[in-house]
């Protein structure tokens, strides 16, 4: 059982059934647990409601300050030919798919229009390093303006790291870039997922990781996996590859359905059940590795557990209610279009511009009052959506209007057919199963993921 604010209590079925029937609880410990978690009150509800309200306000405090994640799609150009990708264009398109400097300057203005004191500027593509001059231009504009703006700004980039030069690395070091790359597992798997003319993607990525680590520090380089059907048979090998390369974090996300070409979906795609079976096995293996003393976290679990085990707001914009699209994120596309999320611009590539909030030259107020934002505001609150409002996991979850739009043509959609819903309820079930039945070593690992590994306590005296 969960409260509106995310407190939870695990009950056995008999107790739950009797509680749901509003029968008196015989076990005094259960009674006290439920009262302490604000799942039950005995006299006046005022105090419980006040504490719940404070917790809810805390949990939703990511809303203060408006969008803080700003994604700059500096080019659609890419040298990979990944089958599951529908967004990128081949190289040698003569810069036709690069962001112009005028567009870049207008996007930087919109970035600073956002009232958030903390801004994350993420560079994406295509392969963003193929448009490094645009990145440089944007970063320099931002840094110059931030001298008097005084925002906390973090730069991140999602790149294959195949096109690093000393000049680029120097630039990233000076501006404290966080680098995220894609690493799909062992060589054959990675290379099969990411065909390059002439091959060798895996080798180039590893070389890039090493160079980036050397220049920026180990902690500034992370990797994400793209899981294809081929990957699902090999959970342990994928994890082993991350351990071998010294990563302390691995993110086992399923393939985003938006980038798909329909014809390759059949070849590369898989069902939610397949993914969850894979995830359960991989998480089990990761926990085993941790129990054996090697610290590595699974980022998806860490994100969800942070919502479950703390009263604080999630930092993950893809699972927020109200929805992270638009309210937490804005995407500036290479062509000057502004989208509420990365999925929004992918939908556009599939011919659906519902989540286009406007153009970089529009005023911030115009963007935030656009029909797209109105649609998101009306459909972006899980707590009010059919199928979500009475879900036990709703305090930790968020809606998926982009997914519903692409699948059902409307932003609310139908939970029974929602990949997003099935995936997340499945993940919550796996994690709550560990929380309810896990041994103390597993719970300790979860605590390490959520709160960090504790340093040695020093005596105060």
């Amino acid at each position, binding site marked *: 059982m969960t409260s509106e604010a995310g407190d939870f209590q695990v009950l056995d079925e008999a107790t739950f059934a009797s509680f749901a029937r509003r029968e008196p609880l015989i076990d005094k410990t259960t009674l*006290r647990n439920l*009262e*302490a978690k604000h799942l039950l009150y005995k006299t006046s509800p005022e105090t419980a409601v*006040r504490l719940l309200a404070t917790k809810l306000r805390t949990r939703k405090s990511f809303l203060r300050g408006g969008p803080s994640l700003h994604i700059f799609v500096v080019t659609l150009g890419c040298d990979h030919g990944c089958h599951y990708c529908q967004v990128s264009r081949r190289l040698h398109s003569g810069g036709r798919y690069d962001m112009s400097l005028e567009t870049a300057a207008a996007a930087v203005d919109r970035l600073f229009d956002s009232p958030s004191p903390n801004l994350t500027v993420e560079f994406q593509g295509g392969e963003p390093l193929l448009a490094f001059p645009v990145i440089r231009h944007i970063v320099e504009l931002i840094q110059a303006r931030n001298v008097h703006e005084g925002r906390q700004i973090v730069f991140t980039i999602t790149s294959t790291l195949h096109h690093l030069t000393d000049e680029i690395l120097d630039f990233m070091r000076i501006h404290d870039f966080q680098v995220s790359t894609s690493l799909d597992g062992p060589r054959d798997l990675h290379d099969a997922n990411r065909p390059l003319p002439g091959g060798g993607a895996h080798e180039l990525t590893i070389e890039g990781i090493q160079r980036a680590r050397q220049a920026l520090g180990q902690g500034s380089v992370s990797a994400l996996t793209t899981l294809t059907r081929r990957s699902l048979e090999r959970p342990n090998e994928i994890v082993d590859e991350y351990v071998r390369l010294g990563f302390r974090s691995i993110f086992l996300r399923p393939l985003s359905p938006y980038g798909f070409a329909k014809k390759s979906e059949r070849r590369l795609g898989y069902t939610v059940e397949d993914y969850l079976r894979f995830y359960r096995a991989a998480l089990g293996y990761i926990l085993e590795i941790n129990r054996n003393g090697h610290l590595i976290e699974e980022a998806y679990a860490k994100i969800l557990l942070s919502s479950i085990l*703390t*009263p*604080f707001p999630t930092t993950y914009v893809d699972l927020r209610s109200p929805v992270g699209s638009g309210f937490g994120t804005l995407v500036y596309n290479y062509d000057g279009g502004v989208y509420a999320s990365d999925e929004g611009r992918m939908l556009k590539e599939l011919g659906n511009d519902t989540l286009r909030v406007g153009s970089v030259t529009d005023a911030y107020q115009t963007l935030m009052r656009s029909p797209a934002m109105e649609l998101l505001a009306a459909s972006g609150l899980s707590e009010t959506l059919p199928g979500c409002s009475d879900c036990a996991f709703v305090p930790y979850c968020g809606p998926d209007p982009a997914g519903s739009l692409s699948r059902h043509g409307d932003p609310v959609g139908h939970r029974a057919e929602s990949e997003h819903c099935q995936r997340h309820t499945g993940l919550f079930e796996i994690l709550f199963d560990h929380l309810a039945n896990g041994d103390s070593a597993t719970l300790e690992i979860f605590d390490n993921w959520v709160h960090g590994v504790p340093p040695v306590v020093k*005596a105060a*005296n």
Partner: protein
Amino acid sequence: MLYKVLSLADALSQDFPLSKVMVDLRSLDGVDLDALGSIGAGAILRVDGDLASPLPMLHSLTMPEVVASGDVIRVHPSGQVNVLYRRGANANTLFATERCNSRCLMCSQPPHEEDDSWRIGEMIDLLQLIDHDLPVLGITGGEPCLLGEGLVEVLRAAKRYLPNTVLHILTNGRLFSDRAFVRSFDQAAGQVVWAVPVYSDNAIDHDYVVQADGAFNETLNGLHNLAERGHRVEIRCVLHRQTVHRLRELADFAYWNLPFAEHVALMGLEPMGYARSNRDVLWIDQLEYADTLNQAAAYLWRRGIAVSIYNIPLCVLPDQARPFARKSISDWKNVFAPECQGCTLQDSCCGFFRSAGDGWRSRGIQPVGLRAIA
């Protein structure tokens, strides 16, 4: 009458009103008392009374070592002397009132219902005589908030005379459930740490411990009202048979519902007052809850909330919990047991309350050897 006892040198160099200064002449002969009088000194302190003095004179103390330079003393016309402030002590506390609106099972300072509002004026006088570099000054009772506007005045005086001193005020926080009352303390926000006991994660257990219906809800609303006005708060819990069974759950509750608390103090029982008469419902050997205590402390600490364990000897705590333990028993209250002979941890241990007889000591008391701290 209150006096600041100062050596002649301090009296002349430090910024206290001379009329309130009692110059300590117990180890200084040949001082011109007329001159002292003419510069406005309030009184003198001498070993004996064999000398005529133009100034009021205190002499022939029964226990002369009890009064030292820097202290503030109250002198009754009868000749009785109380030390109200002690320079260099590990804790100095103002006693606000004997009245209280709770009747905690383990109260070490049982309340009396009598009008003692004269203490407000005395506290304000006393604040002017306390060393300006004192880091922390406690205020206790009874329930200090029962002074109402009087407490506001005391805090106003503290801000004026001791702007750099943190006031650590022990209160049950119940009266802060009134938002208007909380607002009257706005000017004190930041200087005061309100140390508020929460004995359980639920109303039944908490209200039983404090013997007052509705107290849990009042205290929680009070804590939130304080936090909303920018006040610093500390959560305290006294450990005994009625509180330790949900201590781990209390830590969970505090993290979720009171994450603004800057400190959580988990405190062993002081066997005084009601605690003695309620021994049968309160007593539990510290060994029996040491593991739970360790878990609760670690839980809070790793979530970024500072934790202290008070009044529990190091030898009964698991190794991991010992860094949280403080030398918490005031120096005039603490003693060690015969078993402590040869213990390597004695210097960092709180020891025992002088008031605690053998019947209040854990069966786990034992000297800790070098091996255990390695």
